């Protein structure tokens, strides 16, 4: 019981400190917004897409999306290797 009280007290203090710091952070208005303004002003005409989020994700930042697709492909490869068919007499290593 003592342990739980101590743990929650530490958690509360940490939470309060974090919120105290976070209250001063500016939110929603980045100090440098040249690139954002460029995307919002010219994105629709340059890519022809009405959805500006897609035009950024797939066009201006297309290389990032290629990396994301590769990550998903690699994850599926990993799952496939984990659940592969065992050969005769083969055992899991950590049994």
């Amino acid at each position, binding site marked *: 019981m003592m342990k739980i009280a101590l743990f929650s007290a530490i958690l509360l203090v940490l939470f309060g400190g974090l919120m105290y710091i976070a209250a001063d952070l500016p939110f929603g208005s980045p100090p440098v917004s040249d690139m954002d303004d460029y995307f919002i002003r010219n994105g*629709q005409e340059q890519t022809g897409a009405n959805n500006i989020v897609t035009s950024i994700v797939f066009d201006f930042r297309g290389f990032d999306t290629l990396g994301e697709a590769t990550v998903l*492909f690699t994850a599926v490869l990993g799952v496939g290797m984990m659940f592969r068919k065992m050969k005769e007499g083969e055992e899991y290593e950590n049994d």
Partner: protein
Amino acid sequence: MKMTKIVRTTADVFYPFCLVFGLYVVIHGHLTPGGGFQGGAVMATGAALLIVAHAYEDITGRIRKTAMKILEAIGLLTFLFAGLSGILFHRPFMANWMAQTGKLFGNTVAHGPNPGDLNTAGLLPLLNVGVGIEVLGGLTVILLYMLSGIKEEKKP
């Protein structure tokens, strides 16, 4: 092991709607919120409904693991080759060479709010469809692999 008849019937009725809505989100990715990843996830949810409700032996006839693996590979290859296709026209990798040309996917768009036109945005619909297919195949293959692993462990 399969779930009760009520769950199975509900899944059978609902999964086409999930697939159609996911396809809508993918195809309209450059006009409305959403895109390849979100639409593919919605389509995979439709497949997951079927997979969870039925037994593994019944589901392998309807959703084949090999077909899903092929779909996943085709999706990633579509993405790669759509990106590489700009090189043929002396543009850099991933350049949007089809936009604003007046041909396929090339209608010009006025600035500001306008009613959406599907025939716009150049390379983006192709990339959206590629990512959508890849996400559908990948997530479904993960579920099928997990289900097959359970079956193998319960047999002895």
